[in-house]
């Protein structure tokens, strides 16, 4: 899976990146986690509230800091 965290560098965005990394570690297997800081790239996903979580190019959540369990569920559902 390719997991992207969209955010321009606010505290919540960094927190979501950490949470996602932990969730991926729990899930196991090889997955790519990318933090997207560039506002132009972020806008390509039609997202206007950050942080957002994108899995394999599909926006899963916008504008909130998810918990580890929530991220894990979203990744498993994929």
């Amino acid at each position, binding site marked *: 899976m390719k997991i992207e965290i969209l955010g321009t560098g606010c505290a919540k965005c960094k927190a979501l990146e950490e949470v996602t990394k932990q969730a991926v570690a729990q899930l196991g297997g090889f997955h790519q986690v990318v933090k997207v800081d560039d506002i132009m790239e972020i806008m390509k996903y*039609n997202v*206007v509230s950050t942080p957002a979580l994108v899995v394999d190019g599909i926006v899963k959540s916008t504008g909130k800091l998810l918990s580890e369990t929530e991220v894990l569920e979203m990744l498993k559902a994929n």
Partner: protein
Amino acid sequence: MFDWWEKLSGTITFELVGLVPKSQIGEAVHFFLFDTLKIFILLITIIFAVSFLRTYFNTEKVRVYLQGKSEFSGNVLASLFGIITPFCSCSAIPLFLGFLQARIPMGITFSFLISAPLNNEVAIALLFGLFGWKITAIYIGFGLVVAILGGYIIGKMKLEQYILIPVTPMQGELEDVKIELSAAQRAKEAWDYTTDIFKKIYLYVFIGVGIGAFIHGFVPAEFIAKYAGGDAWYAVPLAVLLGIPMYSNAAGVLPLVDVLTSKGMMLGTALAFMMSITALSLPEAMILKRILHVKLIAIFFGIVGFGILLVGYVFNYIL
């Protein structure tokens, strides 16, 4: 609504603790007990209700609704959406650029940017709890007027050249980002959000009510009326200026304003102060500086500040 707690907190203060009714310390302690619990209950209920409703709206949806709306009616809609949409000033940049990208005029974007923080859930909950529904309605109503007209005027001034990052307008219509949630998930999300906010602000409420209780018990009304309340012409502008650096402290400041008004501070001055605290935020200005020229931010603050000033003067005059 809180009569039971008024009586109970009175019993605790005057019978269990044994303070003398009508004494300064007795009044202050009774006020502190009564106010903190009342505010905490209201904050939790209102923030939970608001954030539950808000799980049905997000900024992405608002952008889809606003796309292609004409001026003025767009300003009105954007200001109304500002009430029900969750907004964090850390999202100001993607919001601003994202709206422009969707060919939403800049003035309409500003209407949203003024209305959203003005109608934040903490301010609404506290206003409702401390001042009652009438003042809350006046605050929201005139806040909307400032947001609609402020955005409309900025739009008419044609200031697009002060946007520092070039935005390519997208072609065609936007698609809604679809995220499905069950009612239980929404409730959980709203509850998490509520506890999160509560943890951030409860200390401010304690301090604010504490100082308020002290004033309530020990400072005579004539003193407040003379220094903070009077009808001096500079009371309103001073209130607006003082409100700008206080954004994160709305939770602590509002209980204080409540006590000050009950002791003679004029309501228009108090309203202007509250609006300035929420609508003019220094951290948001710093964030916007990365994409907007200082001139545009200054005009934005100037117009909103002027609008708030007018609201303050009008209310001091009629109430």
